[in-house]
């Protein structure tokens, strides 16, 4: 197998072609090759959720997927979140509730929260806590994040 692979994909609405080392993971590719540094790396083994992003509409860990596997896929990172709709509402609610401190978990947390909203998640606090339990946050204690997600669901359902 060749140590380099040609890929073409769409990232935040732009076509990207690249030749990548076969061992390079997706989040490193985005950060290092495309300078999309909004996605973070906290553990590199799928535990902390800091690298969470959206691939073809699914919520995915960027450290558990190889860049080569993203060939032909459509990726959305935090830099590509829509300026309106639910992602903008979530960003506003995170600000209002101070649902971030250092902000390192935030891009991944937003991606997970969007996944929850997109699958019709309810404003049930326990269900939200369960859903974001794959995302470490070492700063906030989580309550403000739950508040923010609840707010968006309640606003949207009115």
């Amino acid at each position, binding site marked *: 197998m060749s140590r380099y692979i040609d890929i073409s994909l769409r990232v935040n609405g732009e076509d990207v072609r690249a030749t990548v*080392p076969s*061992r390079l993971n997706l989040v490193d590719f985005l*950060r290092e090759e495309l*300078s*999309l*540094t*909004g*996605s*973070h*790396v*906290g*553990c*590199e*083994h799928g*535990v*902390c959720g*800091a690298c969470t992003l959206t691939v073809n509409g699914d919520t995915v860990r960027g450290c558990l997927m190889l860049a080569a596997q993203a060939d032909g896929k459509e990726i959305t*990172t*935090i*830099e590509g*979140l829509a300026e309106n709709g639910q992602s903008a509402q979530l*960003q506003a609610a*995170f*600000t*209002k509730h*101070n649902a*971030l*401190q*250092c*902000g*390192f*978990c*935030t*891009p991944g947390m*937003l991606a997970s929260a969007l996944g929850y909203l997109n699958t019709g998640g309810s404003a049930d*606090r*326990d269900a*939200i*806590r*369960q859903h*974001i*339990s794959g*995302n*470490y*946050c*070492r*700063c*906030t*204690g*989580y*309550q*403000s*994040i*739950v508040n923010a997600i609840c707010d968006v669901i309640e606003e949207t359902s009115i």
Partner: protein
Amino acid sequence: MTGPAHIFDKPNRYIGKPEPRADAARLLQGRGTYVDDQKLPRMVHAAFVRSPHAHATILSINAEEARAATGVVAVYSGEDLAKHVTPYVGTLTHLAGLRSMPQHPLAVGVARWQGEPVVMIVATSRALAEDACELVYVDYAELPAAVDSETALDTGAPIIHSELGSNLAWERDVVVGDIDAAFAAPDVHVVERQFRFGRHTGVTLETRGTVCDYDPSEDQLTVYYSGQAPHMMQVIFSKHLDLPEENIRVISNDVGGSFGIKIHTYGDEIATAAAAKLLKRPVKFIADRFESFLTDIHARDHIVRAKMGVTEAGKIVGIDFDDLTGIGPFSMYPRTSAIECNQVLNLTGAPYVMENYRAKGRVVFQNKTLMCQYRAVGHPIAMAIADGLLEDAARKIGMDPVALREINLMADDSYPRTSATGMKLDDLSHKRALRKLTDLMNYDGLRARQTLARKKGIYRGIGFVSMVEVTNPSPMFYGIGGAPIASQDGATVRLDAGGALHVSSSITEQGQGTNAILAQIAAGVFGVDLNRVKVTTGDTATTPYGGGTWASRGAGIGGEAMLQAAQALKDQVLEVAGVMLQTGVETLDIQSGAVTDIDGSVRLTLADLARTVYYRGNELPNDLNPELIATRHYRVTDFPFVFTNGAMAAHVEVDIETGFVKVLHFWAVEDCGRVINPLLVDEQIRGGVVQGIGGALYEECHYSPDGQFLNATMADYMVPMASEMPEITIAHIETPTKTSILGAKGAGEAGTGGAPAAILNAVNDALSPLGASIWQMPMTPERILASLNQADCN
């Protein structure tokens, strides 16, 4: 000068308002700049070969293959770097008798903990540097390791530094009154327990890292630093890399969590700076998670045997304890690893009136990762000892734990006063805080429901803590002992030509909202809208000199400096306005970006004033010398620290079949003086409580008997996750400190300092009908089941 009341009461004040952070938007859009986001031209990457052994002699290093590997730029051993970096020793003179040995960035001769860096590889990418690490062959001769702190002082234990003759780093005794006589009095009941506080660590979501850039043309080192004390690091780089202090610029952009982890001197980071200097190009080092677990400082690691005596009527007569703290093979530089134990000796029982006190602290070396100051240094230990014993004593004499506290807490009108250990205390509100807490949680109702639940075989517990927190430290904390750590902070406020304020401060932002509160203080005190303030922090080249953000000092010390600078600039601007408007300054004010009459009617916008000063100085009298910039510095005098107090309670349910503890709810009433931004303070407390719960229930660094760290991955080291955490209700009492105009004390560490004791007490309350109790943290299901089994056997 306009008086303090004016600052807090004026119509466009911001102090006290829950303003959302302006910089949240940047982080929410993925536009933060953390250290790993930094990319510089010609930058190369570092990786380290680390000792696989807890204690071993390094016989030889063969790095020939690594040197020849693809992309490798340089390979350094401990000896190589020792030629360019002077060693450092983590001792301070005010901790009398503290011993440690010189430490090098990479191990020289002997490796003393698993994970200690031994060889550094610099290559064109981190992946290639890691590949080359695999090609380095180090021949080690394993030495017996001193791993267990309890046996580290035994005769025959392996000695980590033969020059010191033993593994004792420091000891201190505190004796007040006559504890033996007090305990021997006829109506005194004495409770005695052995506490164990496991090692845990910070697990900042962003790992440690640095980018160091050296420019030989100007002999200039620029360090991108993820940390809390840029000016301290400037001195350290200067001293050990032989560079003039002024030629070092330390820049702290966004920091992905720190909690005391990123405020110490780490060999791999010093080595990165040395490599940048030697290679004359930027070098990046970002720890991976395994490296973080093995080399970030660990915390706690105490074994405490403690007694408390209480009279039949519920009066505490005294506390007697012995604390053994394990700190790894060196005392950390430059803050030392003795402060943690010293805090325990100083703070235990500080909320309570007591006349007799005896404490012994011993700090020992071991072949484990270094232990040092982490969020709420020593506090969780001190609070768990005193309040754990207090609730144990309450059970023994059949008194309600709140009633027992009521008898013994210092009265709110009894300050200023000292604690049993001589700590100077003022402006505290223990009794009011406890009363507010019991109201907030509906204590009586909760007890009634607890009794009902017990009848159904559900074991719930309620536990409390009354606590103090050390904040706003004065020079007595570090400076007095010779550490290059500023206790004062500076703030500069400048009016620009458009009428906006540019402020800078030596305190730093790691997510607390430092920049937000600085803007609130400046805007409100000076008189512009909040969105007209631009804040700069975290850069030794552009901010005033100061300590940074640690020991809950940012708001109290840096905030006061900002208040004073904003007030000074206001006075300067009004002087100019008085001349321009030909009116007395006492009839003028600044509100919402304009010079106004006292009643608020606009006379002159700040933009008009500034443009006149900057562009058309000819319109001003020649003897007027306008200064539209002001700087002030502030330090705490009169007190070594400004203490805060709080009362917290936990409600837990223990599953006696599985040993699992579910925290049902947590309440905290905190008196951190004047609250600058309640939204930010509450979230600081919540985050702190959750870290405290982590230490109480989940987090522990497990070691094998030969010193191997067994759970050094995020999958194996448990931290609190959203689904396990309770809702946390917060309330405040505001007793401003009289040491400053602002009146703010710190709040960032209270939750971490207090929550473990409250959780411990709640679990023991739940277990008490079964005759069981637990005195070891984390209180894992396995340990809880063991305590239940033990109770069955009894």
